[in-house]
């Protein structure tokens, strides 16, 4: 898997912004079958930063109802990446 296949998108929410500001932690949606080591390597390669820790979790998909039928949104893997204190990532980029 290439780094860009591993890192699907950054997760930008109130909580993730707080983590960014307080703990220098960045949250990504990552490929479901990627492991912590692969995520670490992908982040280091794409953003050129040092990663000190990676924690992952699988977010269960919400239950959704269409008429009488119940279904589930796809589950996805979330990775919280802690960077070396001196490094940062500019997630928004200049528009």
């Amino acid at each position, binding site marked *: 898997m290439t780094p860009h296949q591993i890192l699907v998108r950054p997760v930008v929410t109130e909580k993730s*912004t707080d983590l960014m500001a307080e703990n220098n932690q960045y949250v990504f949606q990552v490929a479901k079958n990627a492991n912590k080591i692969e995520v670490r390597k992908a982040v280091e390669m794409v953003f050129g930063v040092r990663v000190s820790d990676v924690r992952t979790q699988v977010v269960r998909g919400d239950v959704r109802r269409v008429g009488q039928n119940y279904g589930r949104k796809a589950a996805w893997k979330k990775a919280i990446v802690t960077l070396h204190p001196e490094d940062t990532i500019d997630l928004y980029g200049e528009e």
Partner: protein
Amino acid sequence: MESSIERISPVECRVKVEIPWSDVSGRLTDKMRDLRRRARLPGFRAGKVPPQVLEKRFGKGVREELAGELVQETFQTVITEHEAQPLTQPVVEESSLEKEQPFRYQARFEVRPEIEPKDYTGVEVRRRPAVVEDSQVDAQLEERRKKLIELRPLPEEPGREKTQAGDVWTVDVEGTLGEQRVSRKDVRADIGETEGEFLPGLNAALENLELSEVGSIKQISFTPPEDRIRAELRGQEAKLELGLREVRVKYVPELDDEFAKDTGDAETLDELKAKIAEDLRKADAETAEREARRRLLESLLEANEFEPAPSMVAREVSAQVEQTKRQLAQQGMRLEHMGTNDQQYAARIRPEALFNVKAFLLLDAIGKKENIEVSDEDVQARLVEMAEESGQNVDRMKASMEKSGQLLMIQAGLREERIFDFLMEKAVVTEAPDPEPEGHDHEHGHEHDHSHDHG
């Protein structure tokens, strides 16, 4: 706020403005705060988006928006401060809104050229004398005569059984022309004439009808003459059912004193002729005056060279195009029917529009220099005149004109007239007929040189 204006060409100015950061920062904060309240981003509750995120996502847009607003607001004040009269919206060339930095911008706009009119007195102008040809008088007389034509019931005439030239039939027409249906009541058919015919050939077809047929219905068929009918209908046969309603005879008044009295303008024929001649002379004199004024303008523009602002010319061109289109639309036509389109037509009238704009600017400049003004009383007098002509209430007319901006146009028109009067008064007017159109171009040129030697 600091500002400066410089002229970069006769018709363009550049304005430079600097606004200190202290004046800008409050506005920017307000805008960001407002944005924060309104912003809805996925992943954030409404109103809880952190400022850094907003700044990163929208900061540039907000700053640009604020820059635009600031330009709009300050441009007016700067313009009034420097007493400039822009013709166009400012085109911002450079602007930078950075944190902790004064906001600077540079914008370009068009202005009227500054014209210092010169050599506008003592200009030699030729005015042709008014001429009235006898044939014109006769034509007018004939027009008047036509207006007084009466239709009278057919007199009892023993021995006359058929319609003849000079009779007028009233018929109801019903039928077909080729494939097309034709139906019209009260059609007038002047026997022996082809002008204003309902259907070409109808009048001829009615010739030699029996007078006894009045009140009856008659079937006829004929093919309209090819030279007088639209191409797509050529060669089609007209099959008509005619309701022959009435026949009357045309009574053409004799050209005598009685006729003159009937026109209500004169007591005798000679008097009427003299009156018509006088009217024609007056009209021609006005045309001659207009032509002379045009020539005066042409030589003035030659003596005073300047470039008008492109936007003014463009505005004049588009105004004229619009006007022509409106006029055409009233006849249910479009420019395309005249074998042209917007762009082509605009290109064609451009030289004339350029002339008009230059003439306007030059006249205005002369008017300013000579302090020729039009007072409200003058405008009022003109309005009264116009109201009398059209039979309207003066005040009501004035109010509606004020609303539509026509009042200003009348004032401008009056002023231009005044300026022209002044110029013609100061000009050296020679009365001479138009030169013969052929081979006299060179002589005209000589005349012109000659006049300059004298001046």
